[in-house]
């Protein structure tokens, strides 16, 4: 009712509108640049203040640390764009590490073990989408339930124990690098590039945004909203299962309790990267930057011998500050 009556005389001046649009685009770019600037600033500051930060070992280590959060955040972003949330990704990571460890100790070939583990990710995502679209459960509740439930499943199959992975070819993957860049970071590229194409250049990407903006309008425009929700939740769970596999190569064990709290890291990365929890706003580069900002804070704080409790406080404060400024930016629209 706020926009109600007008006459032809007061129509928006196209020139002013064009300026406003350009300004908005500029501000949008500005946020990513701000994040990039923030990341660069932290790196420069840490390079000067610590001797060990800007070393090959530390940088590659940071890339390894950040890559898993980054992949989780990309998957999470698909769901958040539909105005949903996936709280289960941390639990899926733990469960996936258990599944692949069990498969490998049962002498499955590596490729088969990976595919089966990813297939479990697909099933979990389908289950989430089923609950959200067919049973009408709020995404928060549905994935809160599986956050608890899937950890239980993992603990049940392993009886709470750790499964050692003895397959050297599998565990050496995370240590190796390619062209001087750690393999784990290449995995981010492997996920992010198709994710970018999917989100920004396919119709399903458009549908994700449309659903997040107005589910009913999307539906009445002929968008298959159920199928699109399935896609979003499956992508999130598959990314999480993939991270579970990467984690297993990194620590060489399958353990159901791994990845505790990672869902919050993923959500925080996504939100810091400009994704709106109200849906319809998000990107791939945003969560990538967000996850490496969080990782750099942790890494830098370790090097500076900052109490690890402070790291959590700083991270929390940063989320509030960044999202507040982002909110200001949106309000001006």
């Amino acid at each position: 009712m706020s926009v109600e009556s007008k006459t032809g005389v007061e129509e928006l001046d196209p020139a002013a509108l064009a300026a406003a649009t350009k300004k908005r685009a500029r501000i949008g770019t500005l946020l990513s640049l701000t994040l990039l600037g923030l990341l660069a600033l932290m790196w420069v500051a840490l390079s000067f203040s610590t001797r060990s930060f800007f070393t090959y070992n530390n940088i590659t280590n940071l890339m390894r640390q950040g890559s898993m959060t980054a992949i989780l955040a990309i998957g999470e972003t698909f769901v958040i764009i539909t105005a949903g949330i996936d709280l289960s990704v941390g639990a899926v990571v733990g469960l996936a590490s258990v599944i692949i460890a069990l498969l490998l100790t049962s002498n499955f070939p590596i490729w088969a073990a990976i595919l089966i583990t990813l297939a479990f990710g697909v099933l979990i995502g389908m289950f989430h989408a089923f609950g959200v679209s067919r049973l009408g459960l709020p995404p928060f509740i549905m994935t809160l339930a599986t956050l608890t439930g899937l950890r239980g499943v993992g603990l049940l199959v392993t009886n709470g124990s750790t499964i050692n992975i003895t397959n050297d070819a599998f565990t050496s993957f995370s240590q190796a690098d390619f062209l001087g860049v750690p393999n784990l970071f290449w995995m981010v590229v492997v996920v992010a590039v198709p994710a970018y194409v999917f989100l920004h250049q396919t119709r399903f990407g458009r549908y994700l945004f449309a659903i997040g903006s107005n589910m009913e309008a999307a539906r009445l425009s002929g968008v298959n909203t159920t199928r699109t929700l399935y896609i979003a939740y499956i992508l999130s769970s598959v990314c999480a299962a993939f991270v579970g596999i990467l984690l297993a190569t990194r620590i060489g064990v399958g353990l159901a309790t791994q990845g505790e709290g990672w869902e919050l890291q993923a959500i925080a990365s996504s939100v810091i990267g400009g994704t709106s929890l109200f849906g319809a706003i998000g990107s791939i580069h945003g969560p990538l930057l967000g996850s490496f900002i969080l990782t750099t804070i942790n890494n830098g704080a370790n090097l500076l011998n900052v109490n690890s409790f402070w790291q959590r406080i700083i991270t929390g404060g940063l989320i509030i500050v960044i999202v507040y400024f982002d909110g200001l930016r949106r309000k001006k629209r």
Partner: protein
Amino acid sequence: MDQPQSGSDQKRGAVETAAPLFVLKKLDKRFGATHALKAVDLIFEAGEIHAIVGENGAGKSTLINLLTGVYLRSSGEVFWEGQPVALATPHEAIKYGINAVHQEVVLCPHLSVAANLFLGDEKVHFGLLQHRAMVREAQKILDDIGFKLPAGAILSALTIGQQQLVATARASTRGTRFLIFDEPTAYLTRQEATQLFALIRRLKAKGVTIVYISHRLEEVFQLADRVSILRDGQLVSTQRVADTNEHALITGMINRTLEQMHYKEEIPFGAEILRTEHLTGKGFEDVSVRVRTGEVIGLYGLIGAGRSEFVMSLFGRYPKTGGQIFWQGQPVDIHKEKDAISRGIALVPESRRDQGLCLNLGVGLNINLPIYERLTKGIVINPFAEAAAADRQIRDVQIKTASRDALASSLSGGNQQKIVVGKWLNHGAGLFIFDEPTVGVDVGTKAEIYKLFAKLLKEGAGIILISSYLPEVYDLSDTLHVFRRGRLVATHDSARTSEKALHQTILTEALGS
């Protein structure tokens, strides 16, 4: 129900000596580029019933929201009992005793009638709610004001009309001195309306000022002392009801140019596009209609008469429970929206905001949403085809936007409506369903929409038009169906009957008696 003429005369005599209660001077409201209310001067006397009439989009709701402190005025002055006031928050308005009964009931449906009456002002004894005492007192209040309602009932168990009465009772009990009614009788039965009118007269007798907003002009003449007309955000006139008549009010409300722009051409009807036989679903029953190429069928009725539910069922949004749909003579099953869309049914839904648009996404995305399958080459969208498709509609239906990437929310209501229409033009369709297409749309866009109708019809499409605005639906339809409480109660061939006689008949049919 007749207002005794002598009573209002006396009132007027009293009013002229006292200082006015509430004075608006050059009240102005802009929303961005939209000028919703233009320098409106209004004086509300203590104890008068002041009717405000105007078409949809004339600025009535904006005025209510300004008076109740929901919006802050862009410029102008407001005087309460001669003192300039800010009127910046709803809280401040309530403090002066300004209250409103809105069209939609804003109460807590899960609480009892009594709890709703006392909400925010509960009776408490040692920190505990006194449920029984509240129900007793609420019942006394309701009986006193003549509303036949059970105070202990849960609000959601009542009809919308009864809930509206509860809202009225609530607004009239808490030291209210200025009470605004926004279309209060839209959902009321005759008996309920009588109860409401009795209450309004009682409030007036107690010196409460009433602002009465209604589309039903006969109510204005029954109740009001004075009437103000708003048109396109401007005050046209304020007159004593005794000094004017229905015809004069309508002339003041309606923009003449608009009347002339109602667009109707003789287009021969062709083959049947769609037919329903005894179609039944949630909210409507046993509806049989037929649309041919070149034909507009109008569905007229009150809000909630089942028209929207009927077309939503045609469109596959809600399931039918009985009857049959025929598409080009063949029986078809439409289970989901896609079934309807792929056959060539297009829907411009009732609420742009809730059903029509992804407001925080770009104009282009909104336009292309139904056709992304076509724009996809292999896996990815062809960006050039996407841009061209969006630009074509922006140009063809003349959407005033900076670019296809501008957010839909940055456009005016009329231009937003054009997006919703435009997306189906790109898709192409044989049957267009328009559900209240001109609500909240400016005059110019209205004319463009009407012209678009003619264009669609000439190209061989059929149109189902839902409108609650009788002159519109009468002028545009070839066949007019009247809905009441979910049933199709009458059908008129608009060309054959004289306009005035028909208006009367249709209104009676829609309202029921």
